[in-house]
């Protein structure tokens, strides 16, 4: 690890500075993200002691890798899923929820698992344009459906207006509920919802935020509605 000559620094300072060197701020090892690194190495202990691999800024996601379903699993059910406009032919354990399929089989981890019981909304996706909780549906039930996830809503260099509004209005803290909030809010734009903040709260109550970013979420939704 290169040493940065500073009078006193914590281990965290060192880590930060090493991430930012060289001076142009580019990650040292190209398009390796935290997620891909961890999924290849696996052991948490190694990850903790090699901070240089963390990317500095979000990149456009690499081409979607599909983890092939385990062939020959007894009772595996073939299904073609249409996600963000792309078709995927899979053979799945029928117990696989749509949520787990997205995250584990299709490398689309933008949709989050909060409660896994349809009570928090973190797993919200669109099925045929409607917002639903992907944790309470089996993937094999969706063979003729158009599914949209947060990855299909916008890209880092071309954000959906709702995503831009969430940033502008600071509509998140830890970010874990955020993809579900945004998916809910985008669907809401096409639903009959009254004009007031109270109406927006009523329309969004299926998405829980433990950090309490609610006022800013409402502001983000309202500002996007005014643009539409």
């Amino acid at each position, binding site marked *: 690890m290169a040493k940065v000559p500073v009078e006193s620094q914590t281990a965290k300072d060192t880590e930060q500075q090493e991430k930012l060197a060289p001076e142009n701020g580019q990650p040292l090892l190209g398009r390796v993200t935290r997620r891909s690194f961890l999924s290849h190495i696996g052991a948490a202990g190694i990850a903790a002691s090699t901070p240089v691999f963390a990317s500095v800024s979000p990149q456009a996601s690499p081409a979607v890798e599909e983890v092939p379903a385990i062939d020959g699993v007894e*009772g595996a*059910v073939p299904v073609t899923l249409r996600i963000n406009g792309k078709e995927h032919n899979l053979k799945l*354990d*029928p*117990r696989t*929820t749509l949520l787990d399929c997205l995250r584990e089989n299709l490398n689309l981890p933008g949709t989050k698992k909060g409660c*896994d*019981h*349809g009570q928090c*909304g973190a797993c*919200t996706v669109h099925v045929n344009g*409607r*917002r*639903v*909780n992907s944790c*309470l*549906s*089996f993937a*094999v*039930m969706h*063979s*003729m459906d158009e599914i949209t996830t947060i990855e299909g809503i916008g890209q880092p260099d071309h954000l959906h207006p709702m995503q831009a509004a969430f940033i502008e209005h600071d509509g998140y803290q830890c970010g874990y509920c955020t993809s579900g909030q945004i998916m*809910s809010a985008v*669907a*809401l734009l096409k*639903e*009959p919802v009254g004009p007031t903040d109270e109406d927006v*709260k*009523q*329309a*969004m*109550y*299926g998405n829980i935020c433990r950090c309490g970013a609610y006022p800013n979420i409402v502001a983000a939704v309202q500002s996007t509605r005014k643009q539409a």
Partner: protein
Amino acid sequence: MDTFQFSRPTTVDQAVQLGAASSTAQQSAEVRFVAGGTTLIDLMKLNVERPRQIVDINVLPLDKIDTAPNGGLIIGALARNSDVAHNPTVQRVYPVLSQALLSGASPQLRNMATTAGNLLQRTRCVYFRDTAHACNKREPGTGCSAIDGQNRTLAILGTSRDCIATNPSDQNVALTALEATIQIQGKGGKRSIPIHEFYLLPGSAPNRETVLEPGDVIVSVTLPPPIAGTKSHYLKLRDRAAYEFALASAAVVLKLNGNKIEYARIALGGVGTRPWRSLEAERALKGNSVNVATFRRAAEEALKDARPASENGFKVELAKRCIVRALTMSTTA
């Protein structure tokens, strides 16, 4: 979750055949239909439901909402709760149903849940959902953890020594006040059942909740033709303003003649072991003047047989006030 066979019939007859292989349509069924999945998959994740076969009925042609020949409304079994709630005819002619639906669950759940699935969403409590606790509904004869446990949110009407769980649906309370009928296609053909005959009291067999038999597929729910000039309201009382079951709720439908109540239908939620039609309240209202004293007498009649458990005695008075308030709101423009 145990693994299962998965099939997707394209006709109601095929679905009936598949369902008929189950030994029961009640708790512990080996074959389950899945539509929205919002109750079934929740319970499967908890190992409360352990079907060996799942029959996906989502492609069956049962999702239309149409006017009936007699002027009533036929709601397809697979019509989504959100579609029913926002349907212009429902909102104009049967607004209590729309109000009830929109007060329940969340927008996401309402987009998934179906009319028939909501009918069958299970009378349940936290102990039913937790296999670490004894539950007569899951396993008859093993005991009721709620009676001597936490029962603040549970039933005060229709309870037995074996079960005090509530049916938490809002839709079903409104359908009860509207006197809906349920159309079923089964092994023996088609039949139609009034909703107040569809649900069973727990008695000594809380594992049996409805009159459904193996192979039965609900195909539609029918509302009778509207009675001109009726007023209605759905009032839901709960600890939070949203996203929670009722502690007490009331669906009221009234027709007035001048200052007299000519027609009344009262159904309660949150307090019964099934959607609770109150004939007692209706008798106390019919022919009497529209005022709070009349409403209060009806409320007293509705709750006179209430048997609270250790933590839900407050529901007796709460339910009475809910009835009075709902009647007041329905008769005040």
